[in-house]
């Protein structure tokens, strides 16, 4: 921001200096961008297991996470260590949610991830348009040396991020989302972590014997990329549509339209489904951690917009959802 003032001061003498500033800035930025790619790659390809603390609002929760990767794919396990025992297991394109309290296991299929790389090159380009990106200090987290990265939003339509990546592998050790008033919206931090050896495929298997549990095959059975007929007319500046698809559910007559908009870092999803007649829904603004959710009924449809973005962003998108026809 400060640098921008200098650039705008008129005077020929300053031109040369300005060119220097611009060059320095682009060099400075390419490096943190490479860090972001390393972080995304590390999250998918490393074997690791550890305990982390998740903080949102005034709540603090502890969970254990295990990630295993080999030629056959990705396996993940997340288990809560506080409160009722719950687990999420991911085996490539299948997500299983185990609710130990209610003895329910829910299975969901997801779109194969390989069709959608973690960070697309043009996403990284739009990221620098929407955030000021710079490297921060070195810090020690969970016994590892970490490089801090600061992503400062250029306006109020997105949160600020601070990321701490392990220096040699790029694995994210700590992540913090900050609102415009510098309040922490959400934070993850590892307190104990093993990277590499010692993590096995078996450590990503569920801890429950689920013989007599209720099974819910709910969730989209398949999805099909393509035009849904729906659009968001005035999304906040910097958000571009990155995905559009129809999600099909067992037993449901009409598919759910799913549109994803991203500014390179944050994403906002728009879901449009026929107005439910049996299921209850909560109208208006809600949230789960840093994910704001805005639900808005149309005469015959229900629009649900959610994303790790400020309420204003999610609401503006929900309020400009419109049907353009197919």
């Amino acid at each position, binding site marked *: 921001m400060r640098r921008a003032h200098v650039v705008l001061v008129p005077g020929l003498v300053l031109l040369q200096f300005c060119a220097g500033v611009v060059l320095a800035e682009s060099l400075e930025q390419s490096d943190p961008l490479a860090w972001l790619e390393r972080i*995304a790659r590390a*999250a998918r390809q490393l074997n690791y297991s550890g305990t982390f603390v*998740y903080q*949102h*609002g*005034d*709540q603090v929760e502890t*969970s254990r996470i295990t990630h295993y990767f080999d030629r056959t794919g990705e396996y*993940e396990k997340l288990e809560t260590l506080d*409160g009722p025992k*719950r687990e*999420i297991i*991911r085996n490539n394109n299948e*997500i299983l*949610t185990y609710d130990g309290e209610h003895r329910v296991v829910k299975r*969901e299929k997801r*779109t194969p*991830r390989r069709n*959608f790389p*973690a960070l697309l090159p043009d996403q990284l380009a739009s990221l620098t348009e929407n955030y000021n990106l710079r490297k921060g200090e070195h810090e020690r987290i969970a016994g590892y040396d970490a490089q801090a990265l600061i992503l400062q939003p250029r*306006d*109020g*339509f997105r949160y600020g991020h601070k990321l701490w990546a392990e220096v040699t592998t790029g694995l*994210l050790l700590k*992540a913090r989302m900050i609102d*415009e*008033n510098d*309040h922490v*919206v959400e934070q993850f931090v590892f307190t104990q972590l093993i990277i590499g050896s010692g993590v096995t495929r078996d450590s990503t298997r569920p801890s429950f014997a689920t013989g007599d549990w209720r099974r819910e095959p*709910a*969730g989209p059975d398949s999805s099909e990329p393509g035009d849904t007929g729906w659009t968001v007319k005035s999304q906040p500046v910097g958000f571009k549509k*990155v*995905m559009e698809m129809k999600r099909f559910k067992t037993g449901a007559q009409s598919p759910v339209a799913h549109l*994803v908009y991203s500014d*390179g*870092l944050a*994403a906002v*999803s728009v879901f449009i489904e026929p107005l439910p007649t049996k299921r*209850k*829904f*909560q109208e*208006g*603004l*809600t*949230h*789960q*951690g840093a*994910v704001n*959710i805005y639900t808005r009924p*149309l*005469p015959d449809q229900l629009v*649900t917009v*959610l994303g790790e973005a400020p309420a*204003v962003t999610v*609401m*503006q998108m929900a309020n400009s959802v*419109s*049907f*353009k*026809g197919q």
Partner: protein
Amino acid sequence: MEKISELMDGELASDQCSMHIRRLSKDPQLARRWDHYHLIRDVLRAEAGTRVDLVAAVSARLQAEPTILAPRRGLQTLIARVALPAAAAVAGVVVGGWLSAPSSQPGRADLAKLTSPAAITAAAPKVAAVVPVAAQANGQVTEYILAHQEFSPTSAMHGAASYVRTLSFKDADSTQ
């Protein structure tokens, strides 16, 4: 955006002031934002009645808003135009309520009807707590969050840690 609020608050040096005023006069989008900031500030200071006719402005804005064209069961092309005058009337009531009690804080939904998002962000009144998702509505929303996270670059960096949001057992956080 930040500069505009500094300019409004008289926090900029004089050479910067004139530079930003030049920018304002050239850029209609910035100029509109400048108007919004003043409107928000005035409303917060309960001065709005003396300056603008908010109800008329809101009605005009609503008229200008794109009509929602949504497919309807059996009536594919019905235009929801009838809703507009009603919405304007409701907005009028909301404005009245808001102005008569400027010290009370409007909910996010009300504020969004009246002002541009940029203005909300800039004025940043401490809005009412966001309601956490109620248990009964949770199932569908959880499914949507999981579906969403597949495509979020932030989640790509967080890895499986993103799932914690859908496992979080305390839904009762009162503030953000």
